């Protein structure tokens, strides 16, 4: 034991650090070494993706490998964005349109989720809903369902409805794995808002619907941001459903296009890395921007019932 008082006051313990922390000064070195290791583990691979995307393939193939690129180039990004001609420009030309498709689909699904998922979450948090336990269990099951089992059905149903190779079809399919999550996250969020707020709104002469959208919704920003950002992220990143359902040129989203480039042997890895980095950027920025709310919403949504 180090030379310190056996019992610290609560104030002092709080100021000194966090519960369960290593305390001795010599341990600081160990802590910083471990933190550095964790940082390398978390962002090292992503940073390397960026490094390869601004490198020439010949430098990546060189042995020994230079971890600081000897030449930096944005040619890969120019190729991906169609600013220079190269042998696989046909593949690269799909990137920007598919990015737009991704954006449209993700935004539409987020909107649908925020409107109908939030409303249902509110009802679960506040009222006695018919078959509450059963429907909550069903919701939980749909949350843990393998989406891929639904795709054969979508394939045939969308064919009958003329929704194959359309963005509307993808929006419908994506609601299957986002809506149960949104209801759950929003239910957990509304449970943190005191029910007295709604009651006082009712006393002030609002009807139930007005109490919801005039009083409760305006103070639910953090929950809406958490649910919305999470939905957008899931849709932006989705691969398998889009890959199977939207095969016609120009109808698919970004992940299948990048996977398609990856499957072609005549495209340099550095070019694929550039497209991968562009695909990753929006989701990463979104999550970093709203991380505080997302962490709160997601932990509440998975821990609480």
């Amino acid at each position, binding site marked *: 034991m180090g030379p310190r008082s*056996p019992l*610290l006051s609560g104030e002092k*313990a709080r100021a*000194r*650090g*966090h*519960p*369960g*922390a*290593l*305390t001795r000064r010599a341990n600081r070195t160990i*802590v910083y070494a471990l*933190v550095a290791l964790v*940082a390398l583990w*978390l962002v090292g*691979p*992503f940073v390397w*993706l960026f490094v*390869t995307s601004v490198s020439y*393939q010949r430098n990546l*193939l060189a042995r020994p*490998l230079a*971890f600081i690129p000897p030449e930096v180039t944005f040619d890969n990004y120019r190729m991906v964005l169609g600013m220079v001609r190269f042998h696989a420009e046909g593949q690269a030309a799909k990137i920007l349109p598919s990015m737009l498709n991704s954006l449209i689909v993700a935004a539409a699904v987020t909107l649908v989720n925020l409107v109908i998922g939030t*409303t*249902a979450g509110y*009802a679960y948090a506040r009222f006695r809903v*018919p078959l509450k336990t059963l429907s909550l*269990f069903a919701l939980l099951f749909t949350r*843990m*369902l*393998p989406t*891929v*089992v*639904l*795709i*054969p*059905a979508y394939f045939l*149903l969308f064919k*009958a409805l003329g929704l194959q190779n359309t963005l509307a079809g993808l929006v419908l399919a994506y609601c299957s794995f986002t*809506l149960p999550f949104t209801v759950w996250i929003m239910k957990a969020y509304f449970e943190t808002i005191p029910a007295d707020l709604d009651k006082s709104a009712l006393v002030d002469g609002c009807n*139930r619907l007005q109490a*919801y959208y005039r009083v409760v919704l305006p103070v639910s920003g953090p929950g809406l941001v958490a649910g919305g950002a999470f939905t957008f*992220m899931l849709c932006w*990143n989705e*691969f*398998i459903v889009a890959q199977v359902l939207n095969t016609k040129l120009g109808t698919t989203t970004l992940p299948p296009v*990048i*996977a398609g480039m*990856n499957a072609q042997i005549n495209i340099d890895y550095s070019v694929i*890395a550039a497209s*991968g980095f562009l*695909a990753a950027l929006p*989701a*990463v920025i*979104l*999550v*970093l921007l709203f991380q505080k709310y997302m962490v709160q919403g997601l932990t509440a949504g*998975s*821990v609480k*019932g």
Partner: protein
Amino acid sequence: MASAPPERVASPVLVPIVAVRRARLSERWFASLLILPAFLAIFLVIVFPLLYSLWMSFADVNLLRATGPALEVFGLRVPLFRYVGVQNYARLFADPLYWDSFWRTAYFVAAFVTETTVVGLGTALVLQERFAGRPLMRSLLLIPWSLSRVVVGLLWIGILDVEFGALNGLLYKLGLVDSYVSFFKHGFSALNVLVSVYMWNQAPFATLLFLAGMQSIPVELYMAAEADGAGYWQRFRYVTFPALRGILFLVLVVSTVNGFLMLDLIYILTMGGPGNETTTISWLGFQTAFQFFKFGPGTAILYTLTALCLILTVVYHKLVFRKLEAEQA
């Protein structure tokens, strides 16, 4: 009805009761109305397709034949195909490839759950320490988790590739290998790479849950433990770990489900190969349905996976609701 509805009885005693009853009824109606759109949507995009897929798993699905039995609703023609009973399932359970994939999936899930829990908890313990830049580190935590699995696959190709992988570059530079290693050449190695890459993507979420759990442990417990002369490991063993038991169980269940469902990384990294040596149940089902276009056997395989998920949901449900009751008590 002979008797008048109770609302019309203007008895001074009954009025408040009726008012209360009315309020309750309207509350029920209002709640049902709020839930209706979501449930309609869930029925249309989940329940109905789920039942249709279930039907296909009992049918001889021929995608080229347009005629045959069909379900006609609102002018739409949904083909029903020929009912063949449990034939798809019987063939499946007699197929050694299915059982190979089944046991491979079991290994994959066990390894994935172990790695995710250990790394997730270890990372949480490190991030729980006091150090400069702690908020920044907590933000970085979300990066692997926010990436599309297509990008996750891509960036690990950049690290593991046999021609330009950074890890190979590093091992070569340090003199640990004479030539670049092909991590995907052998089945078992490729399977373990898949486990670790998926863990890199998923463990941060486990860390988030563990950190949330750690923050709710009262400081007084640690102070008492310190007063009793408990060292770091003893504090972990007797204070931190017992308090995290609920979260730990949650992480185990969630990562088990995620392990069973993993599909996109296999598509990007191995396509189930070499041979069938990284073929899990979900990949086998995907391949059968969408590469060979055999929807009957494909949906049967995927339904065995769905059944497993249903069992795990029951476990999760028990956990969550028991906890809820404990909180309310």
